[in-house]
């Protein structure tokens, strides 16, 4: 029996293995981000990191991955993405907190695999920026191949998108550039943006009170009729109670301060300022609030509110004590967040560890999942990315990506599978062509002719 198992092992190794087993990655340069960098090994069991150090004993039967000359870092975390969702913006209303990404997850989006191949293991998928208060966000792991439910980062703090500035105002401006809007929608100014947010939070407060009053009556064993559930206000009550994080799209320093004041007035904290391209101008105020910033490395000038954006934003904020992450907001940029992080070294002189923190442990903290991911530490999820060169080098490429200890991306395997995929694609195209040829040979029924040539009908 034992011999039979031994015989099977090499076969098993060639496939993507389930989590319930032991893996050792050895001979690697291990960049833990939080506990230094060393030459050594990582022991993974049941999807978790058990040990990481210069000398790790390889348990019997463990799968051993030799990463000689390679670099292992925590899986990259993108705090702002819009992949893997069938729709992004519910722009018909100024407050769309009743909708959420969870309901529109698309597990077949190829951008999930592409993000994986760029070393990303977790992403915050946000609603768009068409409204002052947008829809609910969804934190996901890039578990390519799993269904919608399987992508969800179980236990992550729920989030919601807020948005300020030009994108929000656009729906209030005639002749806007973002698709046709059937009519003007309030607000059209930054004054109106503040008003919409205050109105909604005021409503939410009243709604919260209704439920509290009801609960008090129930507690006193009095007769009470429960308030009617309001799906728009429910998430906002969660915001007021600190149970749902606000990720707020913003650009200008003045609007950032506006939002911080509003949050102060209503007694909650803004979790992150998304983009926050002018955050560096009010770094002190942001730091004092304990609010995080998730920004672009170096995009600028693509619209008026991005004209004072500078690539030093992240570095200034870090120096002033703000928790900062770098995000992509783009399926493309998402594939090289490691070199985006390197830009914070070039512009503002962050250290290697500070730079890599921007795409690992810092976004993990911003999303409230730092006890699970974001660094290589015992007890954390085995979400790891192996690069062939130092991940801050523009020449580095991703070799392997693990999520929960499972190998989800393997460049070698990807390359091996290409000829087979090409052959299958060609066979499908040939089949389609053969079918077309067969149909072309058939005489066409006269009554079908009209619809066959739509160009002729007017």
């Amino acid at each position: 029996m034992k011999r039979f198992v031994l015989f099977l092992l090499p076969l098993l190794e060639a496939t993507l293995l389930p989590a319930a087993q032991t893996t050792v990655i050895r001979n690697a340069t291990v960049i833990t981000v939080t506990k230094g960098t060393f030459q050594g090994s990582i022991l993974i069991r049941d999807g978790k990191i058990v040990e990481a150090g210069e000398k790790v004993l390889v348990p019997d039967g463990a799968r051993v991955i030799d990463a000689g000359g390679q670099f292992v870092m925590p899986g990259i975390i993108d705090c702002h993405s819009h992949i893997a969702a069938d729709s992004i913006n519910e722009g018909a209303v100024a407050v769309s907190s009743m909708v959420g990404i969870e309901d529109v997850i698309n597990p077949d989006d190829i951008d999930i695999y592409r993000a994986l191949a760029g070393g990303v293991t977790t992403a915050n998928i946000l609603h768009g920026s068409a409204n002052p208060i947008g829809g609910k966000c969804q934190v996901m792991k890039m578990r390519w191949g799993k269904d919608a439910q399987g992508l969800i980062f179980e236990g992550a703090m729920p989030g919601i998108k807020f948005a300020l500035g030009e994108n929000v105002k656009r729906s209030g401006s005639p002749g806007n550039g973002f698709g046709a809007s059937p009519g003007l929608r309030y607000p059209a100014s930054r004054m109106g943006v503040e008003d919409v947010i205050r109105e909604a939070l005021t409503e939410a407060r009243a709604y919260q009170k209704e439920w509290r009053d009801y609960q008090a009556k129930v507690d006193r064993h009095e007769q009470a009729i429960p308030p009617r559930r309001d799906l728009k206000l429910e998430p906002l009550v969660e915001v007021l109670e600190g149970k749902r994080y606000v990720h707020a799209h913003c650009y200008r320093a003045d609007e950032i301060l506006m939002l911080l004041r509003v949050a102060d007035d209503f007694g909650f904290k803004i979790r992150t300022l998304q983009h926050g391209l002018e955050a560096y101008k009010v770094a002190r105020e942001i730091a004092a609030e304990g609010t995080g910033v998730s920004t672009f490395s170096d995009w600028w000038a693509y619209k008026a509110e991005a004209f004072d954006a500078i690539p030093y934003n992240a570095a200034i904020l870090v120096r002033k004590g703000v928790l900062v992450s770098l995000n992509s907001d783009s399926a493309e940029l998402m594939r090289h967040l490691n070199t985006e992080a390197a830009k914070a070294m070039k512009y503002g002189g962050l250290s290697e560890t500070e730079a890599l923190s921007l795409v690992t442990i810092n976004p993990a903290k911003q999303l409230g999942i730092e006890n699970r991911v974001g660094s290589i530490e015992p007890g954390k999820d085995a979400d790891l990315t192996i690069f062939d060169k130092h991940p801050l080098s523009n020449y580095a490429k991703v070799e392997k990506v693990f999520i929960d200890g499972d190998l989800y991306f393997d460049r070698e395997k990807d390359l091996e599978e290409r000829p087979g995929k090409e052959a299958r694609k060609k066979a499908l195209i040939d089949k389609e062509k053969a079918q077309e040829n067969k149909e072309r040979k058939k005489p066409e029924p006269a009554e079908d002719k009209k619809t066959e040539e739509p160009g002729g009908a007017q």
Partner: protein
Amino acid sequence: MKTRGEAPCAACLAIFLSLASLRAAGPDTILLRGATVHPVSGPDIADAAVLMRDGKIAEVGPRIAVPKGARIIELKGLHVYPGMIDSDTEIGLTEIEAVREMSDISDIGLFKPQLRAATAVNPASEHIPVTRANGITSVITSPGGGIVAGQSVLMHLSGWTMEDMAVRAPAAMRLEFPNIRTPNRFAAAAETPGRTSAYAEAKKRYEQQMRDLNDFMESARRYRQAKAAAGTGFETDLKFEAMIPVLDGELPMLIRAEREKTIKEAIAFADKQKVHMILERGAEAWKVAADLKAHNIPVILPPTLRLPDEEDNPYDKPFSIPGELFKAGVKFAFASFGPGDEDNPRNLPYEAAAAVGFGLPPEEALRAVTLYAAQIWGVGDELGSIEKGKWADLIVTDGDPLETRTQIKQMFIKGAAVDLDNKHHRLYEKYLAR
């Protein structure tokens, strides 16, 4: 107390003076020495010197006698490279593209060969110092829109006026080759009975545009004939005048064609019209590599850092294309223009670096942002490498310029020191000090 105060002041003054002289320096004689020089056209030279005189490179080598009056800049431990060239930008034509009033990229009409990008470039654009701070010393800036969009300019990223900046004005006539473009894939798929489909409409439009383009070329040719004959009643036409250098083969046609079908049609067009073609944004150039090689057509690449053009392309297809073109013997240059990064030509070196892990030799990556770009634009003997007689467009770095972590320490354009300060750095210092 007083003496203690004077010492740092004197040091300040010395730094101030040296900076001031660096900034004020015109195209005089400057000797860079002690650096590793990367000529790009030949092997690297350790502990070497570069002599710049009258804007040009006067000498390069391990040992150069110091000419009288030359300013010497010691660069021990640093590297000297040729400045990089971005072959596809809108620099100077737009400040904030989303603001209509700040954009001069395109004009009304389909055939506008008389329009010159050089006319509308704003030499005071904030994009110029921001871009050159990362080692880019010259760029192609092109007009867009319509079919014949107008004339591109090749310019140094330094100068008070276009006269100071222009390397070639014009550098090319830009043609956006007609193709079948539907509003989106859903519109293309929607077939409403009794109504022309979006695809059929787009196809009809494309066929009309192809007829118009061929007619336009034919008319331009006849105009040239008529002008040569100088018959009575000949009237000057500025559109056709602008086409004469193209028809004479003096001005290349920069033809934008992304997909295989369009590229093939563009090659056939250039063949038939006998125009000197440069392929622009040739995303699928890899599918037509043999043809491009056979016709000796160089390619300006779309960004390497882009998503695959097809959903079922390998995830790394855009990264591996430059290596494939290199192996096929096609000449190409990298460019920054693409979704998101059209405002970020400073990231040009990273477009080149991204191809290196996927089959392109690193020295080829560097040449494709320097020497090859110069050669493609017909200025291979003026720009793109550190060789005697070329414009002294140089950068001084602390490492490989294709790596993000490398800092650009100094820059010279036409032999004069260039201020690397820019709007971003100024805001950085201002708000870091807040």
